[in-house]
């Protein structure tokens, strides 16, 4: 049981505030699709429009090619997992899971049996008669998933369900959610502001800012070829340089002119910035002529185990960051030393500056 979800020209206004602005997206059946963005970007509003709690001001929501206009949340083939899970505290675990079936008039023995099966599916047997308050965070999470699966939804909507868990458990539940999604083949729409979650779990990710979708792509492309400055800044770390395109492959900044790769829609006239990921930065004592190099002074090195972060400043005082994989034969430069930071033209991206970029920096 799975279905596609399509948003066609969807706009949502709350009074004079436009929460979602003309969004078009088609989510395929059985896909794990994430909306990623800062708080207030409209991603939760999208989820609530798909679930039916609110109707879009303009545009259509289609689930499995059927227009959902005027269909209430209790009639849609969706199930939602709330940020705080919203388990019913006065019901036992199995009553929680069987709630949807109870509402459909399924008899008690069948409900109980189904609840036990679902507890098996989420690998949480033997807690049927307990109350949610007696379970750990991760166990409650599984109960919430089981409760949503009990109504056999075609689309599962998840509103940052992992945000309340601690780091270890969160990483474990990522894999778990992904596995459950593959096992059930239900379409998952996942809302998060955590880029790690979105990249690790999703088939595709939509990055959102201020009610608009900035980029829809597979996780690798979101990270490696961001559509604009906002996506690059929001997903992952960057060294950023303001400058001007001088030729189709050259970018002039206050610390030199670099060979670069152009991002989507970049022209000589557009307002742009140069982005270099910390892990794409290398060190060279004497850079060859013609390579991209910046003289920098090492301020701090923090050793994280599998990698080290090196914080530097260039001659203008701009902070630069490099990330070096741990390699005892090739240690990071010493604190206080002068070095040259180098990077390949393929990994130096010139991206469009948008209003959205400024917004991301304020966050």
């Amino acid at each position: 049981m799975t279905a596609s979800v399509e948003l066609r020209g969807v706009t949502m206004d709350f009074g004079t505030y436009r929460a979602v602005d003309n969004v078009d997206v088609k989510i395929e059946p059985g896909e794990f699709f994430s909306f990623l963005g800062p708080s207030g970007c409209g991603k939760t509003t999208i989820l609530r429009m798909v679930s039916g709690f609110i109707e879009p001001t303009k545009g259509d929501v289609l689930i499995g090619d059927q227009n959902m206009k005027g269909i209430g949340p209790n009639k849609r083939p969706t199930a939602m997992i709330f940020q705080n899970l919203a388990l019913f505290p006065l019901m036992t675990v199995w009553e929680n899971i069987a709630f949807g079936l109870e509402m459909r008039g399924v008899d008690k023995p069948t409900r109980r049996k189904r609840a036990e099966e679902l507890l098996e599916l989420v690998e949480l047997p033997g807690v049927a008669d307990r109350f949610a308050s007696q379970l750990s965070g991760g166990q409650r999470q599984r109960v919430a998933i089981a409760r949503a699966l009990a109504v056999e939804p075609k689309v599962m909507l998840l509103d940052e369900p992992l945000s309340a868990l601690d780091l270890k458990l969160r990483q474990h539940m990522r894999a778990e959610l992904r596995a459950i999604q593959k096992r059930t083949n239900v379409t998952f729409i996942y809302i998060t502001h955590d880029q790690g979650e979105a990249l690790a779990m999703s088939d595709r990710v939509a990055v959102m800012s201020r009610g608009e979708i900035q980029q829809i792509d597979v996780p690798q492309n979101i990270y490696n070829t961001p559509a604009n400055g906002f996506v690059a800044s929001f997903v992952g770390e960057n060294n950023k340089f303001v400058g001007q395109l001088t030729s189709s492959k050259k970018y002039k900044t206050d610390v030199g002119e670099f060979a670069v790769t152009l991002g989507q829609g970049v022209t000589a006239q557009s307002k742009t910035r140069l982005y270099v990921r910390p892990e794409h930065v290398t060190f060279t004592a004497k850079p060859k002529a013609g390579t991209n190099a910046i003289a920098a002074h090492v301020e701090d090195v923090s050793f994280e185990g599998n990698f080290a972060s090196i914080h530097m400043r260039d001659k203008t005082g701009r902070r630069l960051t490099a990330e070096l994989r741990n390699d005892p034969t090739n240690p990071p430069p010493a604190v206080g030393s002068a070095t040259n930071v180098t990077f390949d033209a393929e990994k130096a991206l010139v991206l469009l500056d948008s209003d959205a970029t400024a917004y991301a920096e304020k966050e």
Partner: protein
Amino acid sequence: MAALIRRYGTGLTGIIIALTTFWLIVLVILPYFDLFESSFRPYLPAADVGGPKDVYSLSNYITIFQNPAEFNIGLFGFTFPISVAIHMWVFVLTILFSVLTTLTSLVLCYPLAYYMAKVIDPKRLSTFLLLLVVPMWVSELLRAFAWFILLAFKGPLTIVLQNLGIITDPIHWTWGLGGFSGVIVTLVYVYILFMLFPIYNSMTSLDTNQLEAAQDLGAKSWQTHWRVVVPHCKPGIASGCVTVFMLAVGSLLVPTLLSSPSSRWFTEVIYSRMFDENDWNGGAAYAFILLFVCTIFVSLTMRLFKVGLADIAK
């Protein structure tokens, strides 16, 4: 105790404890004890008090089972004559109509509390609350009197309805429901906030996500209320019901003012024994019957609906 002394010092702590003790013993325990003790003694001329006739007995209590009279109960168009002790009959009717008052308040307050807690725009809530509370600043006497005027035979309600052409002949508004309609309407009006606020409070603590989760899982509106809202609000509902029931049972003013020829409230019986017959011993006995029976009744009801005292205190 040690914590109190640490916080307020010995002097202030002493005063607090002395005042509390005074209040509890002199203003609560002693009067009740005196009344309780006198309820077992016969009503005697002053000269005989403390004499050989002044002995403890249950006779003041037993009076409630004496003096049977014929009453007719009308049910579904049939009339059943029954023979019951007069005071017993008044007592039973008082309990029944207090239950009716309580249920009426509950039916009115539940949707209102839900509207205030979950539906209304929070910006308008304070205005709404003010409109509800302001009438309660007027004394109970005046509020009851307002209904006395409104419901009077040939009073404002009759005149308005006559002018609208809805009725032609004046109606005795307080004669309905076996003569208790005026009493019930006014009791509901006078005590309604004691029902509204506990329910409203319990509803505000209900996570709105739970309502949405229920709806998302396919629950219809009534199912959400029955399975999620009502169980959550049970302590508030119980608290409101106990308060309104106890206030209604114990009300003297409203049943006196809004009475009809056939209505009599048990508190009126107590009053007349104490003040008309000057029989404080008998009045005290009846007052304690009312207190005990109501306490047992409320406890049993709470047991039935599985609500603990501690839940209500929340």
